[in-house]
């Protein structure tokens, strides 16, 4: 119970936290009411919330590095795309099979790779991402290569499909909330404590009898599962998939979201995903200077909240204490 309290306790009654959530809620409500393209931006942000929440279990909780989670998103996404279009499957079983595929891949790949540490682990995971990308390009009989697969049906069960933009937005909000809640549940479980222990000090954790290698593999697989779900959601939301969808930019994007939002926290991935998705949109009017403004904004955030936006309440509390 204690860990649960501490996760949320920092926020309780803190105005800065309420402000952040209030702003997020106001933005969602505004988008929902006015419709328009920001709905699409928000839909992507929510899908990324799922992906980054999973990545956070591996990187934030367990303290490992992966540049290869786009591979698992691709496995989920392509399974959904191929099974629903070529074989006429329902989206749900297609998604589940993709999930199983991603888990199997994470197990096979993670077992040898997770013995590596630091840079080596990072390089190995990067290679996984590149390999899956290459398979998506080359295996044309199934993936259609760069041509991509179009006509992927929207999410739904039987005759009930989530066709409208607003319905999809609500659905994705529920999925993203479930992702965050499950991550919070994992964090405060025995399993989650073992993850964080492995992150803190591998030797100390092993000296306490914790089988670090096994927990690293478990964390890797759990986070791969989140990525696979995100990949499936993505292809159903867009209706199209091609290798570029799951390329290196996805890795860069999810890392930015994780660090800007706050690595290792529960709210961080969601905050990061929303901010990083919305930020470029608010700078669109800058035209050619859009990327410049976006970059500057990122730097400002990382200077003033080096541990991510989720740590802002803490920072503001400390600042207030100091000035009081």
């Amino acid at each position: 119970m204690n860990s649960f309290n501490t996760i949320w306790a920092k926020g309780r009654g803190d105005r800065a936290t309420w402000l952040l959530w209030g702003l997020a809620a106001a933005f969602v409500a505004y988008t929902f009411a006015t419709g328009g393209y920001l709905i699409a931006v928000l839909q992507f942000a929510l899908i990324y919330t799922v992906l980054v929440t999973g990545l956070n279990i591996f990187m934030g909780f367990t303290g490992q590095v992966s540049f290869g989670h786009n591979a698992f998103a691709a496995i989920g996404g392509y399974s959904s795309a191929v099974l629903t279009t070529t074989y006429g499957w329902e989206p749900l079983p297609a998604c589940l099979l993709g999930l199983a595929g991603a888990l199997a891949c994470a197990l096979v790949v993670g077992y040898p790779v997770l013995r590596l540490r630091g840079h080596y682990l990072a390089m190995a995971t990067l290679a996984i991402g590149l390999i899956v990308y290459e398979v998506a390009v080359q295996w044309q009989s199934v993936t259609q290569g760069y041509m991509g697969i179009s006509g992927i049906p929207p999410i739904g069960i039987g005759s009930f499909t989530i066709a409208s933009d607003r319905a999809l937005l609500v659905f994705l909000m529920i999925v993203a909330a479930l992702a965050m809640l499950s991550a919070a549940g994992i964090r405060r479980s025995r399993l989650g404590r073992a993850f964080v222990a492995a992150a803190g000090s591998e030797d100390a954790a092993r000296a306490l009898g914790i089988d670090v290698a096994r927990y690293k593999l478990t964390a890797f697989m759990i986070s791969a599962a989140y990525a696979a779900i995100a990949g499936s959601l993505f292809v159903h939301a867009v209706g199209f998939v091609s290798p570029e969808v799951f390329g290196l930019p996805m890795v860069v994007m999810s890392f930015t979201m994780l660090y800007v939002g706050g690595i290792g926290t529960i709210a961080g991935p969601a905050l990061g995903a929303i901010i990083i998705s919305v930020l470029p949109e608010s700078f669109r009017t800058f035209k050619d200077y859009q990327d410049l403004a976006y970059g500057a904004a990122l730097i400002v955030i990382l200077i003033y909240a080096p541990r991510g936006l989720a740590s802002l309440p803490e920072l503001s509390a400390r600042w207030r204490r100091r000035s009081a």
Partner: protein
Amino acid sequence: MISTATTTRILEVEGLSARYGHVEALRPVDLHVDEGELVAVLGPNGAGKSTLMNAIMGLVPTQGRVRFRGREVPRRAPAAAAALGIVLVPEGRGIFAPMTVAENLELGAYLLNDRHEYARRHARVLAMFPRLKERLSQTAGSLSGGEQQMLAVGRALMSEPKILLLDEPSLGLAPRIIEEILQKLGELNRQGLSIILVEQKAPLVLKLAQRAYLLSVGSIAAEIDPRTIKSHDELVQYYLG
């Protein structure tokens, strides 16, 4: 040597060695700890004290054998060693900074699956370190150095070890705090817990220890009876060989 008639060995180390690549950090070492004994391992920086502790625990690849109450401790299997009751408080404490004090204590009893037993141990540790009680929901990283060391010891005690290995618990702490922690360790030892205490600062522990090993460049240079050491100078002589 202390020669009490009824003592039995809790830990026996035979020809234990370890290397990091080409560096032979630990030459084959023999030592033993009796039931209820507090044994000090002394030696200068780089002597191989930490390597010895990690080797006993199975954290580094080793050659040689370790027996616990007559039973062979499997090598390279810290979980198995922990399950037998050998627990290490590593150098630098190894607390889990982002987690709360309560969670750190929970991790100490990671192998335990009994609520009542857990509550009993928890109460016992908090009784021993009342300061932790006030800080249960604080993150471990926000504690002072002394409190962190108490947490590290408390966490180790949560697993009800039969023998506790402590690697330089005094590191970076103020004298007053060191005093307090050593006093707790003495108390634990009097309650019957076997302890190996690694230190660089010999005077601190010689009062407490029943026996001491002097480690130098990876091997045991001498075994000392603390009562025979009359002055600091005499100890220095040992250090110089």
